[in-house]
């Protein structure tokens, strides 16, 4: 969170963990990456198949933004919002640039979270009390 990849919402997801669901945050993260890969693919296909269809592009990106918001993926969400701003402006180049940033942030977040959960597994239950900066 110190690096801005995740915000307070991620803490909320972690706080939902309990004895019955000790790995809930990791499960949600896994699901997020599966879902977001699909949503990114939807946007990519829309950019290709529906040139300048800003409403369609915006609609697809809105879904991804919502998903980012739910897990606390703040940097990725910010890029989604940037993309949607460019859609509103009718700026194709801006949309393409920000879409590349969305994909880049997606990849970076995946790496960070994979490393984070691996650290947690290594640390065991005691390590769960202290969240590594992200």
């Amino acid at each position, binding site marked *: 969170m110190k690096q801005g990849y995740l915000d307070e919402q991620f803490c*909320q*997801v972690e706080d*939902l963990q309990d004895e019955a669901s000790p790995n809930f945050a990791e*499960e949600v993260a896994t699901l997020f990456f*599966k*879902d977001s890969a699909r949503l990114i693919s939807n946007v990519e296909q829309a950019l290709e198949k529906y040139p300048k269809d800003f409403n369609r592009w915006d609609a697809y990106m*809105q879904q991804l933004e*919502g998903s980012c918001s*739910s897990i606390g993926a703040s940097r990725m969400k910010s890029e989604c919002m940037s993309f949607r701003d460019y859609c509103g402006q009718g700026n194709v180049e801006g949309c393409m640039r920000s879409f590349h940033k969305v994909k880049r942030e997606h990849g970076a977040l995946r790496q960070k979270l994979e490393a984070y959960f691996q650290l947690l597994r290594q640390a065991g239950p005691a390590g769960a009390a202290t969240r590594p900066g992200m």
Partner: protein
Amino acid sequence: MASKNQGSAPRALVVEDIKVDCVILMHMLHKLNCEATVVENGKEAVDLFVEGKTFDIVFLDKDMPLMSGPEAVAKIRAMGATEVKIVGVSADFGGQEAFMQAGADVFVPKPVKLETVAAMLEVMMLGASGEAPRKVDHESHSDETKSFAKMKPPEKEIKM
């Protein structure tokens, strides 16, 4: 259509097509001792009501395939389901007007917080039973919950 469910676990319906959002909300509802059912779009939600299923509270996302949240809300209300509490949920703040015009009781922006859901259930249970609600684990009532208690859908009064 009876929807009051006094004395037993609240029955919640989650209408959400984004898996992450669905899983998080379902987990919150299970933690709050709700019986939660999930469907992926507004049409499936309406179909449940057509089949005679009853719920105490419904959480609907706004943008979904086949039928949107507001559209489903309008159809559910048109079927006479006036007692069920309906919560519109969306990352799009512009969805509030659409949900409220359709007949939702309250709009909650994403991401939904556990304390918000807990407080809504508490208010809802108080209204259903007339008794003090079971203790739920939350810190405080959020602004959305205060709105939930006071909010009136168009031309209707909520008895809480």
